[in-house]
């Protein structure tokens, strides 16, 4: 690396990627506890999706960072436990399909986000209980 680039403090791993900070980790994950109407139906659909390796809802696992409803279009922000998660396509496709199947939803947009990064802290209390019962220490 040349002296010129190493002194560049704003340098990012990839020059072609737009890096943005996500919401504060303490405000996450989103669980939709205050959701009503169509939004509540969408959360119900998301709660119905389980992790392929453990009997825990992806919402309780803390993968969902936000659900935004604009007219009939739903935008779901979600993350994965690892960027190299082998269940990536399986989970994103299932989320898109389940949300699109909710009555009243016209369009579904899924944004895979990586900031803030997922940690075990994102698992909800109910999720911890589910994992414990499954025989997994959290």
């Amino acid at each position: 690396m040349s002296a010129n680039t190493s002194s560049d403090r704003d340098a990012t791993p990839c020059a072609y990627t737009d890096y943005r900070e996500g919401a504060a980790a303490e405000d996450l994950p989103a669980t939709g506890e205050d959701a009503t109407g169509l939004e509540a139906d969408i959360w119900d659909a998301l709660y119905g999706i389980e992790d392929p390796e453990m009997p825990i809802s992806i919402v309780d696992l803390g993968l969902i960072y936000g659900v935004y409803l604009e007219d009939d279009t739903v935008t779901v922000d979600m993350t994965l436990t690892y960027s190299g998660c082998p269940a990536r396509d399986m989970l994103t496709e299932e989320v898109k399909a389940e949300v699109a199947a909710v009555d009243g939803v016209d369009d579904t947009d899924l944004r895979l986000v990586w900031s803030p990064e997922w940690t075990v802290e994102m698992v909800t209390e109910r999720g911890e209980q589910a994992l414990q019962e499954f025989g997994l220490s959290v």
Partner: protein
Amino acid sequence: MRRTRDPSVETSGDEAGATCPYCESTNTVREHPKGPSLCRSMHYCHGCEQPFEKFE
């Protein structure tokens, strides 16, 4: 040649024992940093003599 440890093996429960999900004992050892999936490590509980996994 790799000079630093692969960061993917840095899982918890090595120094301090993880809590056993069956008997809640912390008298446990980590047997392997990775389990059947990327986000699980393998442990053994001396309290109830059972193997268990920890979610990372």
